[in-house]
């Protein structure tokens, strides 16, 4: 990565964006462009140290070309006034906001993997996030991650562990969520290279480290009340959000997702004002028989 130049002549598209402007005024240290899958991804960070780490772990993907920042990584130590939070943004959407550097680093790497998932066939990859909760793991629309993050305290009161990634890997044989190796050549110890031993033994976000059954799948409905979701409708929606169905093929992909839809509790939650949405998700994720009102 190279030093951030706010006056770079080709930064026109950033200048045109009013929404990005506030983010653009932060004290960015370095920026760079990387080719991941078929995408050219611009990354900037407030930390020269983290920039060097990104350069190292994504060395095989580095490009000389300029591109506007797709991802912005704010590191607390280098951004006074950010109240100690490390924040990963995609565009202007904060994906992860945490005080744990290992968590934001891991979330960043997971987000980089996203760009190459459609070229892989070692698992079923879904455009869905894994939410942890009292009853286990649930798949939720990735778009809910930012909404839940904006009410993270309420989510935590419901015992929810917010997603650490915007995608999920499913074992075609079992339908379980599974951890997968990097598809873009990131070393397995990449996070440790940045933070040494992790700051906490439990990450601040939900990551899949072992094979984990999907206890629930939550779908988002625009209209209230949300209609019940049949198992076949659930399978249809899961398959519609599969990133690599053509590669894993019908027998592998559809049967694997059929395991998920056939076993999990499928529910729809209606898009509506926060915090009602968080509470609806919290109730869906509560252990059976232990549903409680928190407000």
């Amino acid at each position, binding site marked *: 990565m190279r030093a951030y130049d706010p006056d770079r002549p080709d930064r026109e598209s950033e200048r045109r964006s009013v929404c990005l402007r506030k983010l653009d005024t932060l004290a960015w240290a370095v920026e760079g462009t990387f080719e991941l899958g078929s995408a050219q991804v611009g990354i900037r960070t407030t930390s020269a140290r983290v920039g060097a780490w990104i350069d190292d772990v994504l060395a095989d993907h580095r490009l000389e070309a300029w591109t506007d920042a797709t991802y912005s990584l704010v590191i607390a130590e280098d951004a006074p006034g950010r109240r100690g939070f490390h924040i990963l943004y995609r565009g202007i959407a904060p994906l992860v906001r945490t005080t744990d550097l290992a968590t934001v680093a891991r979330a960043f790497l997971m987000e980089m993997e996203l760009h190459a998932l459609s070229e892989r066939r070692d698992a079923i990859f879904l455009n869905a996030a894994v939410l942890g909760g009292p009853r286990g793991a649930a798949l939720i629309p990735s778009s809910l991650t930012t909404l839940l993050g904006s009410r993270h305290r309420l989510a935590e009161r419901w015992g929810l562990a917010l997603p650490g990634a915007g995608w999920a890997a499913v074992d075609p044989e079992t339908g379980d969520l599974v951890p997968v190796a990097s598809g873009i050549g990131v070393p397995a110890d990449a996070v440790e290279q940045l933070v040494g031993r992790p700051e906490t033994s439990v990450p601040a976000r939900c990551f899949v480290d072992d094979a984990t059954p999907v206890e629930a799948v939550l779908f988002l409905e625009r209209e209230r009340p949300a209609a019940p979701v*049949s*198992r*076949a*409708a659930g*399978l*249809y929606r899961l*398959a*519609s959000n599969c990133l690599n*169905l*053509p590669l894993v*093929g*019908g*027998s592998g*992909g*559809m*049967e694997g*997702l*059929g395991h998920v*839809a*056939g076993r999990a509790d499928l529910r729809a939650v209606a898009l509506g004002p926060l915090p009602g949405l968080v509470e609806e998700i919290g109730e869906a994720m509560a252990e059976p028989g232990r549903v409680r009102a928190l407000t």
Partner: protein
Amino acid sequence: MAASRPQVRGDLVVVELDGEAVVYDERSGELHHLNPSATLIFGLLDGSATIRTLADDMSQAFGVPQEEMESQVRALVGQLRRLGLIEGKAEVG
């Protein structure tokens, strides 16, 4: 005029859950969700029977007037054909 004996394409991936089917057409990359009655009819489209024969059998099984059932089967077969999910088979003789 020869009556067709509709047959579901053999290369489709069909997963059935609780009486409803999800069909994945690997050729087009499209997914289809069939409701219970469509799933039932879809499963009978094996190229062995004409639409009228299917409608006769189903009207007897479900106690629905033959004309009504034939209309429903024809509509569904037409829709499936437009989606490219079945291939027609002309009846000989």
